[in-house]
């Protein structure tokens, strides 16, 4: 394997690679953001919701978490269009990943909130805080610290799951890589290269998580 020759090929193919990388990053970013916001509501509903709401949301998370992501991706692209919701591959893919992400984040948030001792809520009540205030100043900030490590994990999973969107024709990094391989036949090199790019994205997410953990650490 001639490394200089490969770098040459990569350089020539830089535009499709960068485009693919851009699509992968946008899909992941949108899915993680939407999934996290939705997931926080899922977690709140699971923890504090009235019983019927809790049952509905519990059903939602269990169903979604028990379904392969690929099935979700295919369903949101092919099935939703049969009920009149016509989404492009990119939108359908982001929707599927966001829904998947939300069920995981919901469980993480529930776990974090439930691990906070009851005394915290009681102390907040005792000084006259309303529930929204208690959540904003007492429970939320404590839950955030608990959530971070697991959230980083989920976010990294989302980046990896974005490769599944190649199946429905979203030109993300993996699909672009495969196209390049079919032209250059350099499969080993290009798969390694793609793997390295995925690693870099996830490494950045992990560093970001560590940074926030450090920033919010409580002195002991």
């Amino acid at each position, binding site marked *: 394997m001639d490394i200089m020759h490969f770098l040459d090929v990569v350089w020539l193919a830089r535009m499709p690679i960068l485009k693919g990388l851009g699509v992968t990053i946008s899909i992941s970013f949108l899915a993680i953001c939407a999934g996290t916001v939705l997931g926080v509501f899922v977690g709140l509903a699971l923890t504090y919701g009235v019983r019927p709401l809790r049952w509905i949301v519990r059903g939602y998370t269990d169903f979604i978490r028990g379904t392969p992501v690929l099935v979700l991706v295919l369903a949101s692209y092919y099935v939703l269009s049969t009920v009149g919701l016509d989404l492009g591959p990119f939108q359908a893919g982001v929707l599927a990943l966001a829904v998947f992400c939300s069920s995981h984040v919901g469980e993480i948030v529930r776990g974090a909130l439930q691990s906070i001792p009851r005394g915290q809520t009681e102390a907040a009540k*005792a*000084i006259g805080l*309303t529930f929204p205030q208690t959540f904003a100043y007492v429970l939320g*900030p404590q839950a955030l610290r608990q959530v971070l490590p697991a959230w980083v994990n989920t976010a990294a999973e989302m980046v990896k799951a974005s490769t599944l969107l190649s199946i429905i024709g979203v030109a993300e990094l993996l699909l672009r890589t495969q196209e390049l391989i079919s032209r250059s036949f350099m499969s080993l090199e290009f798969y390694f290269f793609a793997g390295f790019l995925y690693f870099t994205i996830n490494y950045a997410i992990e560093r970001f998580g560590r940074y926030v953990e450090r920033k919010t650490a409580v002195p*002991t």
Partner: protein
Amino acid sequence: MTNNLLEIRDLHKSYGAVEVLKGVDCTMRQGDVVSIIGSSGSGKTTMLRCINMLEEFEGGTISIDGQAIGYEIVNGQRRRKSEREIARQRALTGMAFQQFNLFPHMSAVGNVMLGLVKVKKIGRDEARAVAETWLDRVGLRERAEHYPGQLSGGQQQRVAIARAIAMNPKLMLFDEVTSALDPELVNEVLQVIKNLAQDGMSMLLVTHEMRFAYEVSNRVIFMNQGRIGEEGNPREMFHKPGTERLAEFLKSSTFN
């Protein structure tokens, strides 16, 4: 309308089928220091927690300064007040807990300031000044920027008391505040409570410290199986218990 600070009438509370409070009556005047003693499961803590609606209660009324706590009668129906109203009423009382329950992600001064800023809507600078004054009063001014994890149990409890009292409550509730402390840290907390008593703060304390109850309170309530077993001034009650049950309880406790 009476001039009683606290008035509890026929208070009933059950957990499922178990009736914990079976009709408790109690009144307190401004400046009273009342200790509630009794064995575990007699309903002392539950009674205290009903006063600031940390527990719901099914029967009876509690009023502070003439305000009915937690429930109101509308068209003959007993109805829980709105969350907002209950939150407002909770600020009438301050509470210190057995497990301190300080907010671990806030410094000592931050803990004391939270209620002042968010409930009393006092500006941050003024709130900080008030908080520092109270931390000073409990002897922890120089620990203001420390986090709960950096403080000893006794110091945490003093911060927790400062946090409650800074809200300027009409009545302070103490729920076994020394039970979770190492023996050598108990006194610093009791001293803080004694100082508050001397300042004329109205206080209701659930305690296992019989010596302390004897010294600090002007009235003692002995709870027995969900009812008030006996009530009176500490001197009489501790030296000449009126009921068999109290005599037994005192014999088994550390007071001698």
